[in-house]
């Protein structure tokens, strides 16, 4: 009987997951634009609060965005081409 060497199963599932990870990369800048370019912060009352609170809020959100980008880099490590 002929041996039937099989290429590993589930490649399409892996490809789909990779696509989802890549689409996640789109989510972070959209989230950033929503936070920093929409009237969201003003609607939440940050416009009327003190400069110190504004400062803390913006830097906190900014830091969170950087943390998300850091996590994304780790998530996308397989997709990133090592040259």
């Amino acid at each position, binding site marked *: 009987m*002929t*041996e*039937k*060497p*099989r*290429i*590993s*199963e*589930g*490649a*399409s599932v892996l*490809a789909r997951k990779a696509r989802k990870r*890549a689409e996640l*990369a*789109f989510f*972070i*800048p959209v989230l*950033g*634009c929503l936070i*920093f*370019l*929409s*009237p*969201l*912060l*003003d609607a939440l009352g*940050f*416009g*009327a609060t*003190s*400069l*110190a609170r*504004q*400062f803390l809020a*913006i*830097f906190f959100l*900014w*830091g969170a*965005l*950087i*943390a*998300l*980008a*850091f996590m*994304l*880099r780790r998530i*996308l*490590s397989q997709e*990133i*081409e*090592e*040259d």
Partner: protein
Amino acid sequence: MLGFNGLVTICLVYVGILFLVAGWADRRARKGTASFLSSPIIYTLSISVYCTGWTFYGAVGSAARNGLEFVTIYLGPTLVFVGWWWLLRRLVRIGRTQRITSIADLISSRYGNNNLLAVIVTLLCVIGSTPYIALQLKSLTLSFSIFAADTDGLSPSIIGFWLAVGLALFTIVFGTRSIDANERHHGVVTAIALEAVVKMAALLAVGVFVVWGLSDGPADILSKAPDVINQSDTLITPRWVTLTFLAATAIICLPRMFQVVVVENTAEAHLATASWAFPLYLFFMSLFVLPIAIGGSTFLPASANPDLFVVSLPLAFDQFGLATLAFLGGFSAATSMVIVAAIALSTMISTHIVLPLWIRANQDRNPQSDDVRSMLLVARRISIIGILALGYLYYTLTDGTAALASIGLIAFLGVAQLLPSILGGLFWNNATRHGAITGILSGFAIWAYTLFLPSFEGRLLLTEAVLQNGPFRIAWLRPEALFGSNIEDPLVHATLFSIGVNALLFITVSLLSVPSASERLQAVRMVSPRVGEPRFRAGEATTVEDLYILAQRILGRQEAKAFFEQFAAAQGRQTGLPSPTDDLMRSLERELAGTVGSATAHAMLAQAVGSEDLSFEDLFAMADETAEIMEYSQELELRSRELADTAAKLRLVNQKLTDLSAQKDAFLSQVSHELRTPMTSIRAFAEILRDTSKMKATDQRRFASIILDESVRLTRLLDEILDLSFLESGSAKLNISKMSMVSVVNKALLATEALADGAGVTILTDIRPKTLRLETDVDRLSQVLINLVSNAVKYGEAKTPIVKITARLKSTDVVVSVSDNGPGIPAQHQHLIFEKFARFTSQHEKGSAGLGLAISKEIMRNLGGDLRYLAKPVGATFQLTVPQRRVVEQPAAIAAQ
């Protein structure tokens, strides 16, 4: 406090250290022993060239004047970098695969390698960067002025001039060591990375000093903000959004940012690291900006320039070491910007402007490579001097009065005019060169009119009156209130109109114009860029049996079997199929490509392994191959049809030749037979006359008469054959003359009168019009009519035989019919009527040779007409057609005249 000379000495020592670092890095890079030079950290730090003298000094000034607005300059790049996967990664890939050397190169390359576009972009970048260079000169001049105690004798413009000279020398030595525009500047990048560390360390140190040295921590310093910092009720304003947009744009469009982010990138992974590391760098660079602004506004006199708080605060509290570090931080920020910007701009100028001009000037001779090299080096060095000179000119023209931040924003909006063309080029296949040129030029013109020229406050081109009332007092053309718009902020106003019109015209003109072939090709490459040759990897969703079946279908059974057996043997397998290794996949793709083309082979394997690795470029390549195959196939089909047609013609010709040969044989046979019969008769009776001595006189006369008759018949036959031969060869001479049709018919009737009377045949004529005349060989035409009438009389066997002759004029032809009321010609013989020696039973009996109709047919052909037999139920009807006026063909030479 340090003296001016002391400060200059510190700067020179610092520059010397940078030189040493750059030289060391270059040497290590050449030896290939410095892998850290290509590390993501060095790459990230080099991107910090974004933080110039503006961000070092101007951000604090901006915070002191406008509160948190300064954050936008950092948030814009942050949003671009956290979204690196979608934009920056594409830029970097294109930069590496297309060997892009500058932003002008990118745009011109995308739009069909159009050099005009490259020149426009280069000039725009130079003009757009000029305020930025001036900004660096201003920040350095201010810091020198405030730091050095003994600069009273030196005006700011003198200091600015010498700073410009020093920066030009510095950049020439640093940035023009190599002429390969695509080569990474390891030394420069390493030096800039060092400067990035210095400026961040300086800003953090001053921040720590202000927060914990001058205050009791963050809460304390921030609590002082309401007293000294302006704050509006709304955080996210149109100006906030505009500034963030411009800062984000600057990361892509500024020539120096493109240089460090795209051209100096050595690996995609570095960009991935920078996606979080660079925003983190910006985070720390801006973390103490507001506290320093609050500290400066609180502890320094109201007259203190907020742009210089970073230096003046330590100086005010006698922290000379910290102040020196802060000065070096600002010096680093300014010099790194100038170095990289000058390298990028000089590369663009030398490549896209000087080199094409030089090639045109030297096209008559064959330049040596050294000529080009030295020319490029000189061009870059002169360009650097020119760039610094323009910056200095802007600085002196604006009199150094504008705030640092406002100068930087003017530059940002200038280069932002490239954004629609870049984004459109990367994501829109239908973007065209015409659209890009129109968009850029229109946006640039509006930028210059609404922001750049007004920044000179009436000292350049636009007077104060124009700024106040508009050109020719047309209010709706006021530079800062176009179309009567009521936008208070000039920056928001200029951004809205310039970018809006730019994008609108770019899209509209692109839709209205047609991209060239090279543009379409580049669009495919850049809209769907691919790095390297990833191809396929084993281990995906298929079996080697599927590949074997695929190979069988494409290569053929035997070839596929041999291919897989060879691989199985190489893998040590005596039976069965080989393992689906990467090597197998690559080789199989090559084998398939030999049959179906590389793109189709790639697509087939992509489908087979389910990798979905089909790019737009693949599809285009497949389409090209398919088109080629279709074209080839159509050509083959055409050739095949042509061959078939030719073969059919050859068969026809062959058949004709065969028929002619058979006819010739038959003709010769018939001629022989026809000649032999009378000859035999003549010979026999001549022998009888010769051998019979006692013969009756009556017999002798009868035999002699037979011999005579046969001789006459023989002569007539030979005459007919000869006549037919002449007519067939077309060499029969025609005697054209004019005669009425009635006369022609009468001539024929006269010749056959005796025959008709003898047979009791009534001949009727009907010629209309009676006056019908024709111009032809009347004798020949009469010969045909005589033949037809005599045939009708001889063979029209009826009880009351009637022969009818009609003649009519149809258009330019005369149509004559000769019909009888006899039995006609049997259908089975009708196709033989005009054949030579074609005789039917009764004809033979009546002594016909069977050449009459053949001769008649040939006569009519020679007269330019035709003779046909019309099959009718009763009798036989022959119809001849002859042109009313015979046109004699002219010889070719005469016709040509």
